């Protein structure tokens, strides 16, 4: 029995970032990388299923990305994932969510997991499309924004609680194997133990090439993407009046706003 967890290394922006001269992306020097927040929750969900099952459950994490992504994969290994796969070829640069979904599907076809988790969305681009396009490629049942899950490994159905707008939820039964996109708050992700971190450092990260996926260079990268970036820009800051000065002066102004509101 196997659960595959797709994880993404996301980029946050440094405080004083700059857009590249070609105006198509942010200058790479200003990007800070980390594991996508949602993926912490989906890995934890897989780990909890593994730990409470009475059969053997293997948790495999997979990420599409260049060398640096190894760091995020090691983080997952340190939290207890059994294996890590990194998929990369320089031609994949600029791939969109739907193409990444397709690559992940190729991994699923070889690994044959019983369940696949992805995050609802990524904190950088928030396409919220990769997991479900992966399901489309596999033609597997799927559910998005899952904030609660009842699943016995190997079972032919799972009970998933979809989180809807306004705090409402909906319980659905999904045929398995399935692809579920996991929502924040479904569990409380663990921290890696020191021992886990040491063990992870020694574990191999499997590297898969385009060939192994059975895909060609023209099926990936920006040329295969369903949208094309024309221009990236920094939006105007709106109407906010910035309150400057020392913290004491800033707080004084805030106190004034509060007192005025209270009619004092």
């Amino acid at each position, binding site marked *: 029995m196997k659960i595959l967890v797709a994880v993404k290394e996301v980029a946050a922006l440094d405080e004083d970032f700059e857009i590249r001269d070609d105006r198509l992306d942010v200058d790479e020097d200003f990007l800070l990388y980390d594991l996508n927040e949602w993926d912490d929750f989906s890995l934890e969900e897989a780990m909890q299923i593994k730990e409470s099952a009475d059969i053997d459950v293997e948790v495999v994490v997979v990420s599409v990305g260049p060398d640096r992504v190894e760091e995020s994969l090691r983080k997952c290994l340190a939290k207890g994932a059994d294996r890590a796969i990194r998929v990369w070829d320089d031609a994949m640069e600029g791939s969109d969510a739907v193409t990444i*979904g397709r690559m992940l599907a190729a991994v699923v076809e070889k690994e044959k997991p019983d369940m696949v988790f992805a995050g609802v969305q990524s*904190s950088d681009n928030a396409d*919220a499309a990769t997991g*479900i396009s992966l399901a489309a490629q596999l033609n597997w049942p799927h559910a998005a924004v899952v904030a609660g899950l009842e699943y016995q490994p190997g079972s032919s159905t799972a009970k998933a609680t979809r989180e809807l707008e306004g705090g409402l939820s909906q*319980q659905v039964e999904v045929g398995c194997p399935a692809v579920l996109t996991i929502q924040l708050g479904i569990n409380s992700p663990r921290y890696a133990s020191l021992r886990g971190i040491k063990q992870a450092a020694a574990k191999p990260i499997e590297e898969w090439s385009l060939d192994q996926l059975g895909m060609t260079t023209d099926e990936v990268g920006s040329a295969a993407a369903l949208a094309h970036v024309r221009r990236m820009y920094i939006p105007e800051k709106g109407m906010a*009046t910035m309150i400057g000065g020392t913290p004491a002066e800033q707080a004084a102004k805030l106190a004034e706003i509060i007192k005025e509101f209270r009619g004092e």
Partner: protein
Amino acid sequence: MKSILAIAEHRRGVLRPISLEVIAAAQDVKQAGDKLIVAVIGEQADSFVSDLSVAGVDEIIVVKTACAEFDPEIHEAVLTSLMDSLDPSLVLLPHSVDSLGFVATLARKGNYGFATDVFAMKYDGDALVATRAGYNEKVHVELDFPGKDCVLLTLRSSVFKAVEEAGSPTVSIRDMSDLGSRSRNLEFIEPAGADDVDITGVDFIMSIGRGIAEEANVEQFRELAEMAGATLCCSRPIADSGWLPKSRQVGQSGKVVGSCKLYVAMGISGSIQHMAGMKHVPNIVAVNTDPNASIFTIAQYGIVGDIFEIEEELRSYLE
């Protein structure tokens, strides 16, 4: 002449308001001679016809299925069939939880132009240009779709102004009640009741986000809120961690603070889902160490600074 297909959304017998926003967005980009078709899907989909009969809509297609509520596989099959028969050049859907569950499957299978969470559209000559955000709302990105005859977009809520003026579209009904699914809806679960206060009814809120860093720091902000006479609320990570009850979470999956007049956001970045619950507040003051935090784009007053320093100073003024 092109067709634009807009998809309406409903839940528990009520049309979701974003449906009319999607129609408004379609009207914005509709060019002379284009046909705007609205589709509504479900067992009782015909009950939404009058709500959807607004100005600018040429046709409403009611698709009767065997399922009263959203089902990803039925929706996908219906949309595939509609797109085959209508051959639209543009398909617009809400960027909603339901859409998150199936729209990417259509994009993948049809190889259409595709973008999610779009908040602006225009034509540049023949090219459709869609704008969305990137890097946690800190940049905007203009996209186009070269070589695509059909483009599928999901649209951000509360951006396009809903159409209210009545119209008189033609209505047709398609029966697709034979479609099945490998999923099954079981039940809706209501949000847990408010523990102590109903945050939708209060007029002054102080709200804490991940900037507070640790659970032990919540207490000092609880005191500060009390001194200020504000109700303490929070962004999602604070509620998810159990540091404040879920009933105090502001945002898309929490509460919309409809009566709030003054909102002080402490260490909240301003994700679109958080702003969905508070961006309407007439007076917003944001405190954040990051001068590029997107919360500043909707605030009336911004303080670039450390919430702990501001907290300490503010106490002395409120004491």
